[in-house]
């Protein structure tokens, strides 16, 4: 007998569904969420606590280690700039790049994938072959080329980095669309005369958001890493702005003489990436549990 005869569904996990269930999954999830929140708060408000500016040179404390008395809590770099402020402001840029680039890849990927998947047939074939071709290209190469040709513009960087990831997103979204478009409620909408655009917008996309969000959350750390890599090559954001990648790049060169220059930005970067990955994974597990329990609610 199908599950249709039964009454209300049970929760996602033994603990239920919703925010609480998600955070209760494991201690790791709670710890990482708190850490991430702490970093986010620090990155936004931290610089206000320090009297120094991002490019302010302190001639008396060049390449000095962290000290409380000097007011340089993370130390200074080779040019006497305060590392605390630079690390946190760098964090702002890195996180911004991660989120915006992901948003852009989402926008392009979801539209492209949903249209290809829903249209099917020839259109789908052509669109996906294009994706295949683009996949084969060395994207890094193009990004570097763009950066060199058009200068290191922040907006351009968002777009360029976001453009790397949209291919993955498009593939995933197309797959979801293919399975969703044969579901009965889509047939019902078609029988109602809802136009294709409306079906994609109202029925298909909302029903795949749970999967897309998981991939998006795992894309954010990826984007941050790409930016860091570009910065390492010297193609990241322009001075006086900085990012974790750039700081790591500079710090790596001074590793032996001024280890704090590498230590602080690298730690922040590593911890943030780790927490984002843990949360992204937890989101995927939560999503699977939710889907599984709804199916097995008989």
């Amino acid at each position: 007998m199908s599950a249709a005869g039964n009454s209300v569904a049970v929760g996602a996990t033994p603990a239920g569904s919703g925010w609480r269930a998600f955070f209760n999954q494991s201690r790791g999830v709670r710890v990482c969420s708190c850490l991430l929140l702490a970093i986010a708060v620090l990155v936004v408000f931290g610089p206000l606590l320090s009297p120094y500016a991002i490019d302010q040179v302190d001639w008396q404390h060049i390449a000095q280690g962290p000290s409380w008395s000097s007011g340089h809590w993370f130390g200074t770099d080779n040019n006497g700039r305060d590392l605390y402020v630079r690390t946190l402001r760098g964090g702002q840029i890195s996180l911004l790049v991660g989120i915006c680039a992901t948003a852009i890849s989402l926008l392009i990927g979801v539209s492209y994938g949903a249209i290809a998947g829903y249209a099917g047939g020839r259109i789908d074939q052509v669109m996906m072959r294009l994706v295949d071709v683009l996949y084969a290209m060395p994207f890094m190469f193009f990004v570097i080329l763009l950066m060199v040709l058009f200068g290191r513009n922040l907006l351009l960087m968002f777009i360029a980095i976001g453009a790397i990831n949209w291919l993955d997103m498009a593939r995933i979204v197309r797959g979801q669309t293919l399975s969703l478009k044969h579901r009965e409620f889509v047939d019902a909408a078609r029988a109602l005369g809802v136009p294709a655009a409306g079906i994609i917008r109202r029925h298909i996309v909302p029903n795949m958001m749970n999967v897309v969000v998981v991939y998006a959350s795992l894309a954010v750390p990826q984007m941050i890493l790409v930016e860091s890599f570009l910065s390492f090559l010297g193609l990241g954001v322009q001075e006086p702005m900085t990012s974790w990648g750039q700081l790591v790049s500079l710090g790596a060169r001074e590793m032996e003489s001024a280890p704090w220059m590498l230590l602080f930005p690298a730690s922040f970067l590593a911890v943030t990436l780790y927490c984002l990955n843990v949360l992204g994974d937890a989101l995927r597990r939560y999503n699977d549990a939710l889907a599984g329990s709804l199916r097995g609610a008989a």
Partner: protein
Amino acid sequence: MSELLLEVEDLGVSLPTSSGQLHAVDSLGFSLREGELLGIVGESGSGKTQTALALMGLTPAGSRVSGSARLDGEELIGRPEAELNDLRGDRIAMVFQDPQAALNPYLRIGVQLTEVLEQHRELDAVTAAQRATEMLQAVGLDDSERCMRSYPHQLSGGMRQRVTIAIALLCRPRLLIADEPTTALDVTVQAQILGLLRVLKGSHYGAGLLITHDLAVVAEICDRVLVMYGGKPMELAAVDRLFHNGHHPYTRALLRSLPRLDRPESGLVPIPGQPGRPTGAGCPFRPRCAERLEQCAAVVPPRLDIAPGHLSYCHRSGPN
């Protein structure tokens, strides 16, 4: 005078859910004689499938089974898994609803049959193949040689179900449990399978439990009927008595709500409400019962002996 092949007393199955323990089966008792086919009828949440699983020792992990179920005098509940494994396929066998799911798509039919014989009867390959072929013929698969060599996907739905019945009957089980065996089949194929189950009774299996939601199927081949609702028994009677002298309000309401091929002019009186999970004490059918009384909400209905072999669990005594 046939001995009791199966005797079930006070059977209970409780399952863990997100909202606490659920009594999927509660205080169930019935017996089965040799040569009898008992139909267990119920809707979603009635506990009929959990009853079958409890008898097979296949209830889900974390569940608790209480009470007693004796097969030829031997207790089934609480037996260690190793012993139950020996019994399954040999003395008790089960046929499920979806023949596709019950058969391994990667093995030929012949292998799936001989496997059972080699396990339980320790026969050699040649004898096992012979027995398997005979069994396929017995379930009406005339072209048994071809069938033995085929894969499940090469057979139709009805043929696959015949195969699962063949597998179940290979060791001449004492008890055959069929859980909605024809629900997934076309009506013409259903007729054949029902005919088959009736014909093979006694010769190929001792007694049977037919679990279904379809009262017409029960009327067609069962000797006795047990009606369940919300995990509890409602009424137990010989098939003719249940359909023509039903006592329990649920039984009667159910019969009145069926669309009839033979009585098209009769109106259909649906039972209001949903078949829900049982809540609290008293009779689980109470929320939907048109004849409910005060005590039905709080007190468990007593067992009424309407006539020999006819039991009803209701507060309303006496015939309707």
